[in-house]
């Protein structure tokens, strides 16, 4: 937003943002369009887009202003033509937001959500050769703003599309919490017999180098051609635009703030690699589509929001558990150190987490233990302290990531209650726990 200085100048010549103006002082004369001021700009600096394309920021006090023309008519993007091809399967592209669904206003630089998802097809026309794509604009939200509220909507939408005849579903999604969403839908879509693919982008599609294009194409390949009956994330396998990896939705995590190949399988291998040409290479075991199975998907979307993820760290104050108890929380996942440790016999006795965990469990809270190492399996037996913690009632969550454990706990509590949650937390349901960890699953 512009400050008073610029606003009054614009007002004095009856000009508005996007209007064409001339600014002059002495022999200097500039012409261009008034751009909006963003939160990054000095509000007292007027931003003008010159015909060369450059934006300039000038001190309005020095210039005499004159309005030349009003805002030009907006030019609409030509709509992508969706041509139905009888030889192709139906895939639903459910749009929820995120970088992959944002675009830059090329004049102002403002990033906003796509209001017409067809815009994406306009830039990736080849997707119409892969499947008959229906676009479902479900949400328009950055992933960091999402929660269980959206997960249930997404699960309902996926079930509706698949029950309605779609061969597969692709979600476009912000990347930050995509692995929470993929875990949630893995649990929620009971009776899944089709591929459900989450994809996004780390570079926005306004740039020619965006990863969105290949991610989208490979995701549609999985949805339209693979025989995978699981929820997963399909994003760049490496930094190169050569192949995407399809990774199990409960065993995947965003591991880099900005790289294209940020999503990595944790304690797992990718299910498949998808070449940019469309070839699918399966790389580990997975649930296959049952061609005979005609059952409908029954989304089970309950979720208890009173669950939290608590990180243990040196010097951490265990009374945080009391805080959650007082707030009425029903479940906690502790992100312990190493094999699943927390301070048990510290120098300051009051820093021990043990009595608080015991109290919490005795008072009905479900407490799970995962590891902040991320890679590997927690273990309740190797050290005495581990035995004490599990003895106090903490459930060791095997090789689950802390995020998946959290989502699973919320879902179990929301649908089955505490006893069942306690019983099922460390038992495999949809591939989130593996009884054996392959040697080649570390840092892949």
């Amino acid at each position: 937003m512009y400050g008073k200085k610029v606003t009054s100048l614009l007002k004095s010549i009856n000009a508005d943002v996007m209007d064409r103006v001339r600014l002059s002082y002495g022999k200097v004369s500039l012409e261009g369009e008034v751009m909006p001021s963003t939160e990054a700009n000095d509000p007292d600096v007027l931003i003008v887009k010159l015909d060369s394309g450059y934006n300039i920021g000038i001190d309005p006090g020095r210039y005499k202003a004159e309005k030349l023309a009003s805002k030009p008519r907006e030019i609409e993007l030509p709509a992508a033509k969706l041509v139905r091809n009888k030889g192709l399967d139906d895939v639903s592209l459910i749009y929820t937001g995120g970088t992959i669904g944002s675009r830059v206003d090329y004049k102002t630089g403002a990033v906003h959500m796509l209001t017409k998802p067809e815009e994406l097809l306009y830039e990736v026309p080849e997707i119409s050769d892969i499947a008959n794509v229906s676009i479902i604009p479900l949400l328009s939200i950055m992933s960091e703003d999402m929660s269980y509220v959206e997960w249930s909507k997404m699960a309902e939408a996926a079930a509706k599309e698949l029950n309605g005849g779609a061969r597969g579903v692709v979600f476009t999604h912000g990347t930050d919490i995509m692995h929470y969403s993929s875990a949630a839908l893995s649990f929620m879509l009971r009776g899944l017999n089709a591929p459900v693919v989450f994809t996004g982008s780390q570079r926005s599609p306004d740039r020619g180098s965006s990863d969105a294009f290949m991610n989208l194409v490979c995701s549609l390949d999985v949805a339209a051609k693979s025989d995978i009956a699981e929820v997963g994330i399909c994003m760049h396998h490496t930094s190169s635009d050569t192949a995407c990896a399809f990774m199990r939705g409960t065993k995947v995590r965003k591991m880099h703030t900005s790289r294209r190949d940020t999503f990595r399988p944790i304690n797992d291998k990718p299910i498949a690699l998808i070449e940019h040409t469309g070839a699918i290479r399966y790389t580990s075991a997975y649930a296959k589509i049952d061609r005979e199975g005609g059952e409908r998907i029954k989304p089970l979307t309950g979720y208890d929001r009173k669950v939290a993820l608590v990180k243990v760290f040196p010097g951490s104050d265990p009374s945080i558990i009391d805080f959650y108890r007082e707030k009425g929380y029903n479940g906690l996942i502790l992100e312990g150190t190493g094999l699943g440790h927390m301070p048990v016999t510290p120098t300051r006795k009051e820093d021990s987490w043990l009595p608080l965990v015991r109290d919490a469990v005795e008072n009905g809270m479900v407490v799970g233990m995962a590891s902040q190492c991320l890679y590997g399996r927690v273990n309740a037996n190797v050290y005495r302290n581990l035995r004490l913690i599990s003895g106090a009632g903490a459930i060791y969550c095997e090789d689950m990531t802390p995020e998946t454990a959290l989502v699973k706990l919320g879902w179990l509590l929301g649908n089955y209650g505490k006893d069942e949650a306690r019983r099922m937390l460390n038992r495999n349901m949809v591939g989130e726990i593996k009884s054996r960890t392959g040697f080649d699953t570390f840092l892949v």
Partner: protein
Amino acid sequence: MDDDYYRKLGFRCGLEIHQRLDTAEKLFCSCSTEQDSAGIGKVYRMQRAVAGELGTIDKAARFEQGKGRRFEYNLYEDSTCLVDADEEPPHGLNIEALRVVLSLSSAMGMNVMGEIEPMRKNVVDGSDTSAFQRTMLIGFDGSISVNGRKIGIPSICLEEESCGIGRNYGEEIEYNVDRLGIPLIEIATSAEISSPQMAKEVALHIGMLLRLTGRVKRGLGTIRQDVNVSIADGARTELKGFQDVSMLDRFVENEVRRQRELADIAGLLKKAKASVGKAVDVTGVFEDTKAELVRKKLERGGRAVAFSLTGFAGLLGREVNPNRRLGSEISDYARAAGSGGIIHSDEDMAKYGISKEELASLRRKLGMRDGDSFILVAEKAGIAERAAEMARERAQHAIEGVPKETRVAVNDESCTSRFTRPLPGGSRMYPETDVRPIPVDKGMLDEAAKGAPDIGKEKKTLMSQLGDGNTVELLMGSPRLPLYRALSRTEGIDCRLVANVLLQKFTELARNGYRMDGVEDSKLVEIFAAYSRGAITKQAIDELLKAVSREGGLDIRSAITALGLQRITGKELSALISRFKRENKTGDVGQLKKAVMSKHRLNIDGEELNDLLA
């Protein structure tokens, strides 16, 4: 040809000078700006054209996408990071680079922005990993004075250098990412340059100003001059890629000639009611051909595509530049689509081995009438069709006049150029939202004004040091001026000797095959320091230069000993003279001097010897 001749043609010409800065870090990250030899891997990326700010896909961008190329990027140890690999948002702007641009802005009287707005300029030839170049306008509306003529400088920008190009495999291009992101200054002149000669003078003048900042890189490719040229009957053409600015005037002269010829051809074509036929697949005509060029392509599953031309007879072979014909201009377009070139009917068909029967069949297939011409492309399927379409587009344009193009120098001897891509449209820039706008305050501007390069003042200083106008001019035009300035500050240094070595000696040694471009400045500083403290003679400087040109990392102190270049002076020299007197049994000054110098030429200062013998 004088200014008047060019004025009558409606000659318009402006320059864009790009100069790489010698800052410690890149423009938007902390990588070194030294190009790196330690490769650490590669990434492969595809890039595509995206909708421009008006919702249209930029013409130049779409053209590059039409080529459907994959890019291979080489990454390096010290000079590439995630920012350069398009895997991390940019860091803050390099203020050191901004200061250099501000001081140049001050020297050219530019109006500097109160707040600098970083922008993204779409680039889809793969030379930027991000598919855009970060650039910002720093100042506008300044001027320079060249030989008494005022030339407007409408803009000065600070931007990121692109990747260096490695191998070009046609459908895949290799780029070196070490160069990407080095700060680059772009100075544009107004289009009021009135002759090719003047274009060269302006380029030289701006080069001088840049070097005076003392913060520019030196060596091949570190400064680039792009020239925009048009005549009234022609079209704006951007010429790029000269190796040597001293040839710039001849390139511009040739471009003017090319546009005149093409305008003339367009006139003739219009008169002849010329037209271009549709592209037709003529692979069948050449099924059993003996024409090697065509046969080889078809054997590998390629296609032959041709189209007819009416009213072009004789014109395809007409020369528009030394050794370049209208046919070459059309061929450039087919090449840009990935083909090896075209065959056209103004050429000798026997040369290709195309038979009369094939020719007749081709003519039938294209529905040609007497006097019609044709153009034929034989290439891999896909490329053949695209190349023929590009060639058709260019042939069609020949009837209308001169197309707007970006052209690159092909041959520095004949000073000719070829088409490389259509001239980019205007809708290629949008704000770089990953970087905050940069405020410029009065303190920065005052500091810039103090350090602003001043050609007049510099010439005066040089004159006082060198006392010779000719040497001053040569030095002002030399890329080694910043080095001279650094060396001239060494205590007790002989400035004339430094100038002489940097200007004459370097040229002489380079001519004799020594690789003087690779000699590091720090080595020269050491050599001159050794001379200044009396450790070596003037003659020894030559030997050390030769040695260091062969071995860049040479340790100068050790080399002096190893090559036996220690100066013999004072008592040691007196003793040597006495020994020579005894051994040669002579007191004759001339004979003694000859005898001593013939053995110790590199170790003895002639003047000192004369003094001792006197």
